[in-house]
């Protein structure tokens, strides 16, 4: 796996935990431990996303307005890239 894919995988892991904890908190809004873990994961995801966007282009277009071309040209999520072959 390329550096880009490794970083994306790490982001996906934290983002998955965020989705899961958020859903859990919809029905358990007072669970203090879950809230703590959610904010911990959000912090880690934000850091990794900033690193990814700096190196490989935006994940959300508004976050990096200077990288218009990268929004278009960086690999789309369903692409099988050169780096895989």
């Amino acid at each position, binding site marked *: 796996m390329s550096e880009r894919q490794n970083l994306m995988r790490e982001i996906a892991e934290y983002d998955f935990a965020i989705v899961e904890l*958020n859903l*859990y908190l919809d029905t358990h809004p007072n669970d203090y431990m879950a809230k703590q873990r959610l904010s911990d994961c959000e912090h880690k995801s934000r850091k990794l996303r900033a690193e990814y966007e700096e190196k490989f282009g*935006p994940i959300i277009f*508004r976050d990096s307005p200077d990288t218009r071309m990268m929004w278009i040209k960086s690999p789309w999520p369903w692409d*099988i890239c050169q780096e895989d072959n």
Partner: protein
Amino acid sequence: MWVYEKKLQYPIKIKNPNPALAKIISTQYGGSDGELGASLRYLSQRYSMPYPELRAILTDIGTEELAHLEMIGAIIYQLTRNLTPEQIKEAGYDSYFVDHTTGVYPSSASGVPFTAAYIQSKGDVLTDIHEDLAAEQKARTTYDNILRFCDDPDVIDPIRFLREREIVHYQRFGEGLRIATDKLDSKNFYAFNPSFDKRKPNLNK
């Protein structure tokens, strides 16, 4: 509103094309218990939900289903790359190919185009949540059936992830049902429809 994130919820990287498998999996794109129906079902039902916890669950699960739709689309796309006409015919993919080439189209494995008849939005909290519980189980069974035909670890891995999500969503909807019934008349959950009836009827009459 929604904002697109240029990433998949779970990475998908399939090395070997397999159009026969793509045809089976495409049922989770536009089939009766697929991800498109799931997202439309939840995102439509949420408007008439009387309780905020249920509005939150339906919005968040409905949004996650859109991410699953994208994952299934990516799987179908990657399973149908670089095919020769011989491979297409051999795999029985010719009947799909003649209509869509290798474009991703929402239909069931047997070729029935997606229809809103697969979903219900009944405007009744108990009815809608029961529909959602059943929908998650139907999708789980479909993924179990898909797994019977998978021998490629690149495909098995994301399909297992999606199967597991159905079970988690079922759990959350179960808790949602409990939240709803806790707010209703415990002697008669059906005394009135909190999604429609403005006032609780006088039960002493």
